[in-house]
């Protein structure tokens, strides 16, 4: 069976989101199918400027075909148009223009899909909101499987997506909340789909002691891993943490790992480590009391799964229904909706190590039951298997 994975960007340098999700799934499913990746030459998700050379290459054993982006995104023009569409009455044509402005505009990728559709059994599209998914699925709906990686976003109200969600043969959802949201938008309960997500692999060894020594960490700490951005709820996290620190005498620190798009407040108990290697990340996570996930919008938080894989509890933002849902289903994390809940939950985690251990244990079990690669691969195989049966 030959399966194409279609995604907006693809490369070893791309470290997060749907692109990494796609790469991991493609590399794992390459064992079962003849996998090829169809993507653009872009590396930057803001402008989609051509970065990688055009043509075909092999990355970790997977064949990757790259297609040029004909026009990079103008972020200002795109922002203006999006604001207008979100606030004013508009037509489907306006939304299609928005899609072109959003990009990555790569008509040659769609032409390739159309011309070579008979060579592939299925096309798995990642990220519903981009040009490649919309026009790709419209080109070959009968062979399309969509991994929407959708989060609660104001653009989901666009009628363009309501129609898109009714087209594919099947869906691969990241969470139950995402599935409910898409069903609510499109009323497409009749289209088959399963909640799958993505797996992760925890390294066998990591130097936690060395990490603690290197950063002179004697007190407990909670850790945030990811892009430090206002959209990820980091501004609120800083505010809550500093306010809590003013009133509380509990000695604990907040460790931040990841690239920063936000000014990090200067505070003796906030330690910013910048972008860290995978080994250091797992060492830091292993030494932490808990992982904090302040994000308002998540389709699936990979780092939360990694924390659970390591047996660490999570303190999540309750306003992100996906995170809250995962905490409830796994019984492996607490959540907060405001400052009071933040302080109380954090105090509880910091003061009750038995609770942390139990939550961590639950997290590990939840991870092993749902997010190991064996489980993920089986779910993908089952989805395609059921489509094959349907075809017969």
């Amino acid at each position, binding site marked *: 069976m030959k399966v194409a994975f279609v995604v907006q960007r693809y490369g070893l340098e791309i470290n997060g989101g749907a692109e990494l999700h796609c790469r991991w799934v493609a590399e794992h499913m390459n064992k079962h199918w003849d996998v090829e990746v169809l993507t653009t030459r872009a590396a930057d998700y803001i402008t989609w400027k051509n970065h990688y050379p055009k043509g075909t290459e092999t990355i970790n054993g997977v064949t990757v075909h790259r297609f040029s982006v004909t026009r990079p995104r103008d972020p200002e023009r795109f922002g203006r148009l999006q604001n207008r569409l979100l606030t004013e009455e508009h037509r489907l044509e306006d939304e299609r223009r928005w899609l072109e402005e959003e990009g990555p505009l790569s008509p040659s990728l769609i032409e390739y899909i159309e011309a070579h559709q008979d060579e592939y059994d299925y096309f798995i599209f990642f990220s519903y909101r981009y040009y490649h998914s919309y026009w790709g699925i419209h080109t070959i709906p009968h062979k399309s499987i969509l991994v929407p990686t959708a989060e609660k976003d104001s653009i989901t109200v666009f009628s363009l997506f*309501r129609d898109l969600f009714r087209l594919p043969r099947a869906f691969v959802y990241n969470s139950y909340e995402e599935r409910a949201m898409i069903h609510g938008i499109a009323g497409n309960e009749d289209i088959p789909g399963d909640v799958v997500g993505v797996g992760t692999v925890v390294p066998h060894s990591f130097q936690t002691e060395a990490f603690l020594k290197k950063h002179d960490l004697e007190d407990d700490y909670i850790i945030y891993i990811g892009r430090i951005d206002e959209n990820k709820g980091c501004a609120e996290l800083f505010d809550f943490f500093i306010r809590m620190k003013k009133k*509380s005498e509990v000695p604990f620190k907040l460790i931040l790992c990841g690239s920063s798009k936000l000014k990090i407040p200067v505070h003796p108990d906030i330690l910013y480590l910048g972008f860290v290697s995978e080994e250091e990340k797992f060492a830091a996570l292993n030494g932490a009391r808990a992982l904090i996930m302040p994000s*308002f919008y998540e389709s699936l938080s990979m780092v939360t799964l990694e924390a659970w894989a390591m047996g660490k509890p999570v303190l999540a933002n309750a306003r992100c229904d996906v995170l809250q849902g995962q905490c409830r289903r796994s019984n492996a994390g607490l959540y907060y909706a405001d400052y009071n809940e933040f302080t109380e939950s954090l*105090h509880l985690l910091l003061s009750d190590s038995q*609770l942390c251990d139990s939550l961590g244990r639950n997290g590990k079990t939840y991870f092993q039951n749902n997010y190991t690669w064996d489980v993920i691969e089986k779910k993908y195989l089952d989805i395609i298997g059921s489509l094959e049966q349907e075809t017969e």
Partner: protein
Amino acid sequence: MVDEQKNGEVEDAGLSNRIDYEAIDVEDIMTRLRQKIAARPTEKDEPEEGLSSWPDDVPAYAPEPKDPGKTGRVKRLLIKIMRPFTPFIKLLAYPIHRELRDTIEILDQTNKRLDYLYDLQHRHYEELKPKIININLRVNERIDIAFNDINRLKEYTKLLHTMTHNLVVEMTKLKIEEENVKLKTRILEKDFEFLGRKEKALEDELFK
């Protein structure tokens, strides 16, 4: 490390005692935490600094009074005597750089006040930012819900429209059908009448 934190953790300890560590129920823990928060006496909000009244640490505009000195006193006396020629004397005895210095001092004071106001504004903005984000999120959520409702209503309206259209078509078809049936009935009535007449004529012929 922190497990032995004492103060303020008494209540947490109370909560911990009620947790079944073998069968953790996160929802139950969160409900209890919320009950605990609700039961707590509400803290008074810190009074917000209003811009109408100046806080104590605002540098006030107060140039330091300076001792005019002997020369100054003589200059003042001379100026008083020579009041009609004041502008001319001022020009000679009150050097321009002195006026410049005074002006710079005033500007310096003003700068300090501006710096303070800028800091104050920045602080206010930083304080309000999370609230603004929060409100923005809530508004967005409500808008999402409203949009979903509107979309659903639109779909219902479309369906109703289609249904009404179908009903009109069906009614028209039925009307045509009814006319056809009426016509057929009339034809049958006439046939029946004709057959009746024929029957009568045949009877007459037979019994003649």
